[in-house]
């Protein structure tokens, strides 16, 4: 089923209202991003006082454009937005992306109400206002005033906060988390989280969504859309305002306890979302879900060259309900055939501080081939005698030869060279992190999601069944 937002993400043409020859204007930055991103559709700058902008013919209004305009990005002062809405409506625009601020966020509720009702009258949907735009890499579309060098991938990021969103665009580039989409929601006057989750649930280019949420207007609709989304793909939620509860007065009545944070915790569990406390974990998990999303079996093997890293990972896994089992005996036998006698062949397997790339390769490859191992966590602590990049290459080789069938997650601790090894691993499709804890909790998120998904699927089945029963009764009585 095609989502109502399909054309927003796959426009055949886009207009930028408020583009100008002044390159520092927001409209101009957006236009530049659209052009430099390589968007294949038609692009129309709209500005009544210019003939051409960035080599494109400029139009005085949307109605003066002869072709059809699917999306109009609006970057004019708030007081001029309503006239643009009328112009867009007459021009047959389908989506308004309103970057302008000066609406609800500054107490201007009436102007925002007028914006939405005018758009509705013309059958248009509104993204924003008060946003930095949106990005959709499968269409090579960057209609935002954020960074231009966004890394394509399959993580969609939806944010209510503009400033944080732009910052995170940058963060995703640094962390090498490729995105399918970045959407700034701002005031959510019309299009909200539920609409986007409906679109991304069906979008073949998106494997996971990170949502930064401050609040929602229509809670029921959010619950329906989010539940249905997480029954298909992992949903990671950063919910701001978690500590409000601490300030609430002590009282035992339900009403006073149902303050935001406690209720939201319940809601997020109910919809099967992974609630994370910080941005770092959100992107850590997304990095993993970009490669793996189907739940592995419970037999996790940890391979490390340092005992401490192994223990930290074991603790982190256990805190998340993942417990290590003894490795298969024939695997242990195999390890014994080449490892030094002081190596530990329990789980975590400690292949010793002097472990060569060859040890990593052999230990990992055999683990990935072994039918009694479901997922592997590879840890590396930088030493004077080993080279992080070579170790990373050995890991990638083993993973490639295994055909990426089992989740492999790496944690590399050390200097700048280790960081480079982490980047290399991520670029090669192996989720990697600079600490054993981050690697372990990301792997554990895969198991957490599997459990959440199971619950949400059962819940949806139950509700569907209950609904059918009610409808059945109605049929009987009306008959």
């Amino acid at each position: 089923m095609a989502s109502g937002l399909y054309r927003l993400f796959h426009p055949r043409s886009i207009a930028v209202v408020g583009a100008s020859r002044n390159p520092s204007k927001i409209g101009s930055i957006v236009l530049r991003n659209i052009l430099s991103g390589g968007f294949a559709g038609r692009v129309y700058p709209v500005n009544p006082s210019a003939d051409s902008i960035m080599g494109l013919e400029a139009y005085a209004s949307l109605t003066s454009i002869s072709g059809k305009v699917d999306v109009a990005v609006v970057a004019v002062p708030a007081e001029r937005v309503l006239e643009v809405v009328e112009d867009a409506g007459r021009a047959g625009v389908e989506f308004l992306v309103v970057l302008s601020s000066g609406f609800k966020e500054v107490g201007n509720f009436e102007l925002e109400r007028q914006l939405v009702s005018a758009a509705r009258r013309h059958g248009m949907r509104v993204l924003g206002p008060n946003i930095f735009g949106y990005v959709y890499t499968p269409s090579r579309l960057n209609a935002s005033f954020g960074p231009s060098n966004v890394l394509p991938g399959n993580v969609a990021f939806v944010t209510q906060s503009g400033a944080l969103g732009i910052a995170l665009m940058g963060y995703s580039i640094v962390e090498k988390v490729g995105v399918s989409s970045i959407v700034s929601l701002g005031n959510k006057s019309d299009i909200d989280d539920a609409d986007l989750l409906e679109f991304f649930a069906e979008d073949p280019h998106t494997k996971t969504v990170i949502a930064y949420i401050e609040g929602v207007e229509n809670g029921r609709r959010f619950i329906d859309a989010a539940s249905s989304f997480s029954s298909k793909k992992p949903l990671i939620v950063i919910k701001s305002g978690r500590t409000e509860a601490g300030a609430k007065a002590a009282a035992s009545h339900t009403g006073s306890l149902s303050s935001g944070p406690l209720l939201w915790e319940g809601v997020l569990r109910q919809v099967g979302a992974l609630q994370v406390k910080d941005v770092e974990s959100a992107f850590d998990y997304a990095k993993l879900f970009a490669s793996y999303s189907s739940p592995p079996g419970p037999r996790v093997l940890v391979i490390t060259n340092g005992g401490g890293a192994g223990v930290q990972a074991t603790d982190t896994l256990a805190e998340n309900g993942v417990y290590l089992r003894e490795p298969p005996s024939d695997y242990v036998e195999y390890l014994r055939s080449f490892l030094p006698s002081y190596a530990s062949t329990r789980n975590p397997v400690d292949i010793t501080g002097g472990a060569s790339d060859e040890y990593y390769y052999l230990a990992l490859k055999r683990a990935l081939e072994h039918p009694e191992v479901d997922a592997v966590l590879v840890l590396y602590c930088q030493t004077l005698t080993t080279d992080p990049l070579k170790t990373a290459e050995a890991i990638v080789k083993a993973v490639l030869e295994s055909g990426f069938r089992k989740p492999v997650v790496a944690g590399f601790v050390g200097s700048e060279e280790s960081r480079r090894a982490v980047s290399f691993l991520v670029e090669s499709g192996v989720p990697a992190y600079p600490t054993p804890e981050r690697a372990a909790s990301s792997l554990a998120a895969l198991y957490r999601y599997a459990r959440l998904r199971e619950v949400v699927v059962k819940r949806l089945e139950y509700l569907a069944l209950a609904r059918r029963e009610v409808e059945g009764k109605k049929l009987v009585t009306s008959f």
Partner: protein
Amino acid sequence: MECTPSFLIDSARSEGRSKLLEHESFCLCEHYGIPVPRYGVARSSEEAVRIAKKIGFPVVLKVISPDVVHKSDVGGVILDVRSPEEVREKYSALMRNVTLRAPGARVYGVLVQEMVPRGLEVIVGATRDPYFGPVVMFGLGGVFVEVLKDVSFRVAPLTPIDAGEMVREVKGYRLFEAFRGEAPRDRKAVEEIILRVSELIEDLDEVSEVDLNPVIVFEEGLGAKVADARFMLR
């Protein structure tokens, strides 16, 4: 008194009350299959004795008044009444207390109720959130709720899966399990009450808040019972 939600809500409204009286609350619970203590409303000490005999001793006496918010503060609750003689005596004492400490309060009678045996105390509640609509709460009683905020929420309508998760996700969940020689608690009975409350708050638009506090949970297989119920109307 007719025990249907519409009758109860209408009669409270006609008297300008935004809160159901205790016997009305029990009655509404019963309508939704939520287990409550055996109870009756007495308007004389002799009637109280008759009801108490029917229920079986010990019983609790509680004043029924729309004007007394904290019944225990004015001596309007007397626990553990063990014989007909004691019922007569405590009935008069209760009336005296209320007349003295809450002069002018309307008194509709005295609720005579079964004294609920001891057990694990939990809270089941419901309220209306401006964004999510009806929501249901579960928590362990006393300090767990008041100090530790160890509660869980779900948005109605709840499924049995939600009710199960709500009970298991509070930190004090282990109190339901067998420990120190005590038998495990009847978790299923609590989940059932949670589901009934979800149904109630979904059905009855006029109810703004539900507080079943405490609900006493017995050993596995023996169920649970609401010891005190409070319904607020919008």
